[in-house]
């Protein structure tokens, strides 16, 4: 891999041991994956924030780390709402460890917005290079916003944040951004249907680049749900919501292929995977109007969006529902070993595997109906 003078200086340790290690990581990854050079990144987003996910191993690593990131950097959700953790039933030892992790990230100059939708806070420019690690955000950045990022792990995104560069391979290069399978649906889809479609297609296409042929073009919330589902059941990092090229393979799905909705007697209903946008909160508030919640209903969003939607949140919470920020159902211990109902293909995949929770999926209206009619 070609390094410029500045890269070489960092590798030689002239900017300190932490940046030197970070550069060693980037060079090693560049060598492993055949990059020819490093490219500057516009921002970084780091997974591995919840104490549930990284545990003492991650905390110990972060504790020893010093220095400062060189590009705007945000975090993935942590294990609790930073104010409502008592209400979530989080124990104090967890809170202590979680806050220690957040403090460490902040000391590195990282903006401790903990969200899987960093693009609502600061949308990357089209064509910009990023080093993001939340898989649904990677998909959204590549597919909806036209930015370029690989699916980074937490540690590699952190290394990129410290140096401000990433090795140029994978989805940073045009040649790897060409669709190689067409997915055709000849029937209308709406809302959560796109999360269900993502759940089904991810299992089929794994890490390929699908392009879709839809009856009606999905909106941004629906694209978010589609990408999140495919990134969870597969490793899809890039897709196209309309036809671009002519891949040799076409797969036509029927409505029955997407028949994954079911209903049960959940002990909690959880929405907001990925974190809700303003328009999703508006829809939830509308569906809840005039009802009283009879079963715990949790709605996850970013603090950034919540702070800008105060009246919507008041309306939602007046029905007995809880809006929580900084966290989500997947990375918080609050949703383990439960019976959950969700409106997300991503949550349907991870509920059982990462939370050991029996999980069913329905539309947003189904979920709210179940929550209000115990």
């Amino acid at each position, binding site marked *: 891999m070609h390094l410029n003078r500045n890269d070489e200086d960092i590798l030689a340790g002239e900017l300190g041991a932490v940046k030197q*290690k970070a550069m*060693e*990581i980037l060079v*090693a*990854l560049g*060598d*492993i994956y055949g990059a020819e050079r490093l490219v500057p990144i516009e921002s970084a987003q780091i*997974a*591995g924030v919840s104490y549930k*996910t*990284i*545990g*003492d*191993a*991650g905390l*110990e*690593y972060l504790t020893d780390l010093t220095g400062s990131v060189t590009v705007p950097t945000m975090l993935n959700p942590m294990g609790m709402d930073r104010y409502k953790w008592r209400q979530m039933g989080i124990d104090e030892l967890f809170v202590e460890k979680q806050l220690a992790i957040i403090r460490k990230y902040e000391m590195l100059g990282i903006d401790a917005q903990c969200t899987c939708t960093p693009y609502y806070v600061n949308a990357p420019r089209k064509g910009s290079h990023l080093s993001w*690690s939340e898989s649904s955000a990677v998909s959204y950045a590549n597919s909806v916003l036209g930015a370029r990022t690989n699916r980074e*792990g*937490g*540690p*590699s995104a952190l*290394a990129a944040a410290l140096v401000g560069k990433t090795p140029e391979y994978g989805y940073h290069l045009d040649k790897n951004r060409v669709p190689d399978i067409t997915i055709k649906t000849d029937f209308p889809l709406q809302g959560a249907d796109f999360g269900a479609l993502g759940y089904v297609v991810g299992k089929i296409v794994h890490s390929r680049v699908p392009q879709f042929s839809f009856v009606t073009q999905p909106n941004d919330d629906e694209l978010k749900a589609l990408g999140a589902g495919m990134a969870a059941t597969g490793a899809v990092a890039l897709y196209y919501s309309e036809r671009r090229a002519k891949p040799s393979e076409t797969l036509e799905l029927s409505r029955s292929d997407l028949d994954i909705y079911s209903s049960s007697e959940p002990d909690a209903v959880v929405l907001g995977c990925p974190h809700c946008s303003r328009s999703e909160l508006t829809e939830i508030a509308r569906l809840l109007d005039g009802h009283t919640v009879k079963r715990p209903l949790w709605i996850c969003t970013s603090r950034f969006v919540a702070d800008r939607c105060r009246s919507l949140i008041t309306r939602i919470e007046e029905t007995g529902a809880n809006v929580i920020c900084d966290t989500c159902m997947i990375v918080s211990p609050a949703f383990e070993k439960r019976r959950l109902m969700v409106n997300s293909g991503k949550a349907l995949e991870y509920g059982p595997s990462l939370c050991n929770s029996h999980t069913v999926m329905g539309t947003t209206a189904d979920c709210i109906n179940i929550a209000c009619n115990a």
Partner: protein
Amino acid sequence: MLKRIKGRIISKGIGEGDAVVTSQPLSFLGGVDPKRGVIIDLKHELYGVSIVGSVLAFPQGKGSTVGSYVMYQLKRNGKAPAAIVNASSETIIAVGAIISNIPLIDRLDVDPIDAIKPGSHVLVNCVDGFIEVET
């Protein structure tokens, strides 16, 4: 007789120890106990085996990227392998070895899983890019 096999340096340093060898990929998160340095993945053929101070040879990592931090924790606890040999490294093991100062080499001229006899003494030189095995 000692035989020298060339490879690609991923993480710098020199380490030596007795070989622990497996043809199965390894996840450090959930697969290795960071306090004892013992493989705890029930489904792994090395279940119960200690990797402390060993030259650990396996094809590649798998599982969560948090595995990199588990490698760091092993090193801090004095339970890390002396060096690692991969057939072909991926992100988790590469990052974990670099942040933990564990020498890591891959892409040897021959398959390390065949070339390294379990229990034999192995030297991993990640300054000049070779390993030395007993034949």
